[in-house]
């Protein structure tokens, strides 16, 4: 059946229906936007300095002392959460930036130059893929000492095979298209074709993968800092707040609930954003993870 052309809606109708037509995009985008704002704000202002201890006010429930209560050292939970937002988001973003760019580069090059390079790249992927971030963080932690830098490397290294696999399969499909043959017939080499034809046509899939990996990076960072492999104290991270809360589970349950909620909300936001972007960018791909 020939392509069915749809008439453009009136502007007024379009604004309200954006939410109806793209719920994922709007919800996910809103959550992430709020978190990013909180993270930046926390660099300049937090209700209380995150590290300030007031032993006399320790283990106070929400609203009794500060909006969200205090922890076992009397530190203000809200301030710690805000600072934690900055740490988690920054680590995740930098890690994904490294992982995505290296992984995509590796994937695109493997797709362009088949044969030995691709085989070696895929073999290297299998090796790296055998080291979940927790394990590699343990090894690197022992080597370089735990901290922000180790967490970023551990998360980013593991992400390279993920991105290169997605990129290789997507790029190979584009290489098989006739318009790439036409480009070769126009005397263009592998690099130029990759930049002009391959990357623009796989950008959608990479963008969607970036949002999904950002969510996973947040989860992994939380796990690392829960085990004490993340940033060194006293810098507040959601993961370590959960670790500290474990011993006070009975007396101060909110200490365990609030950081977990923050993590879940952030990851939920990224995943919804990812779904929304996928539907927006590739309407045909609806329903595919």
């Amino acid at each position: 059946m020939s392509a069915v052309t749809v008439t453009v809606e009136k502007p007024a109708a379009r604004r309200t229906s954006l939410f109806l037509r793209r719920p994922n995009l709007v919800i996910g985008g809103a959550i992430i936007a709020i978190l990013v704002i909180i993270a930046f704000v926390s660099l300049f202002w937090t209700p209380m300095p995150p590290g300030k201890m007031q032993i006399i006010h320790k283990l106070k429930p929400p609203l009794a002392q500060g909006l969200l209560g205090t922890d076992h050292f009397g530190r203000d939970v809200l301030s710690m959460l805000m600072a934690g937002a900055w740490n988690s988001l920054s680590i995740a973003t930098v890690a994904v930036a490294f992982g995505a760019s290296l992984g995509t580069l590796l994937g695109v090059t493997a797709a362009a130059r088949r044969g030995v390079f691709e085989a070696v790249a895929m073999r290297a992927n299998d090796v790296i893929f055998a080291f979940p971030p927790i394990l590699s963080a343990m090894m690197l932690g022992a080597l370089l000492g735990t901290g922000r830098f180790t967490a970023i490397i551990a998360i980013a290294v593991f992400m390279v095979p993920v991105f290169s696999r997605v990129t290789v399969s997507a790029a190979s499909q584009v290489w098989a298209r006739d318009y790439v043959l036409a480009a070769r017939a126009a005397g263009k080499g592998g690099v130029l074709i990759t930049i002009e034809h391959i990357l623009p046509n796989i950008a959608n899939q990479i963008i969607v993968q970036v949002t999904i990996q950002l969510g996973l990076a947040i989860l992994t960072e939380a796990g690392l800092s829960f085990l004490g492999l993340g940033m060194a104290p006293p810098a507040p991270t959601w993961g370590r707040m959960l670790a500290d809360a474990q011993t006070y589970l009975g007396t101060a349950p909110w200490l365990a609930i609030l950081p977990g909620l923050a993590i879940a909300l952030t990851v939920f936001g990224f995943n919804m954003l990812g779904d929304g972007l996928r539907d927006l960018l590739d309407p045909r791909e609806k329903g595919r993870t």
Partner: protein
Amino acid sequence: MKKRPLLDIRGLTRDYVGNALFSRPHVNRALDDLTMTVDAGTIHGIVGESGCGKSTLARIVMGLDRPTSGEVIFDGDAVFRLNDKELKRKRRDFQMVFQDPFGSLNPRHTVGRIVAEPLHVLDVRPGRAETRDKVAAMLESVGLTAAHAERHPHEFSGGQRQRIAIARALITEPKLVVADEAVSALDLSVQAQVLNLLMELREKRGVTFLFITHNLAVVDAVADMVGVMYRGRMVETGPAQEVFASPLHPYTQVLAAAEPSIEKFGRPASQQKPIAAIADIGVGCSFRNRCPIAAARCAVEQPALRTLSPGRQTACHRAEDLLPSTQPAKARRI
């Protein structure tokens, strides 16, 4: 002295080693010692069923795939002896049109950028303004308008996209355009429009077309010369009108008989024996198992392509029996 052919293909062979995951690798011979020539300013048809190697031929002529052996001499230069730089400069003279209108245009680029892409081949690339004018003129000449340059491929129908692809192929004023099934994906009425365009371009601009398709009727309507291919080999060549009027190879006959047409109602008597499931490669003529007039010799010796009458070549031991009886006796050399 007869003018030098624009395209001269000698003994072209292309093997693909199927590195099957499971069984031992088997060699698939896509092209088997193919020799042919194409004269400038003609529409040279190549017809054959899928798997006969016509697309492989197209890719090798375009320098997009290397042959296992054999030569492609284009406009005096041996394409595969040129170094990269020379090949790139030579590419301005031969371009290609593809089958799938939806797969041959980059959805992310504007029509103007798509059509201008082959200009990348020129040593001295035209400036932005000059390019825009060149593209506008080319779009007009294929029946579109300059305004279309800003639009994207998804806004066009199949027929219009093929016109854009043709405009892209002609932007560097090439001598040869390889059209690989260029109209096969189009509907009847649109197909006729594009075929008319090709014929018009051949007259007005003297462009030579290597027109590859599986559809006999299309080749008969458009081509001056035609080559019939079967399992990687050229089995018959000659002026299209004559070849289809009185084919000199049993396979061409079987093809012509099998092709449904609006003049033939009801069911024709079946010309061919049932198609053997497994390919019969190896010694002898590869068509023998399906050939209505196969003889003992056909199973032993592979027939070479030979000239039976001026301008008419065929690769069949018993081609003489196919000569129409009116042919004067002396021409019937056994």
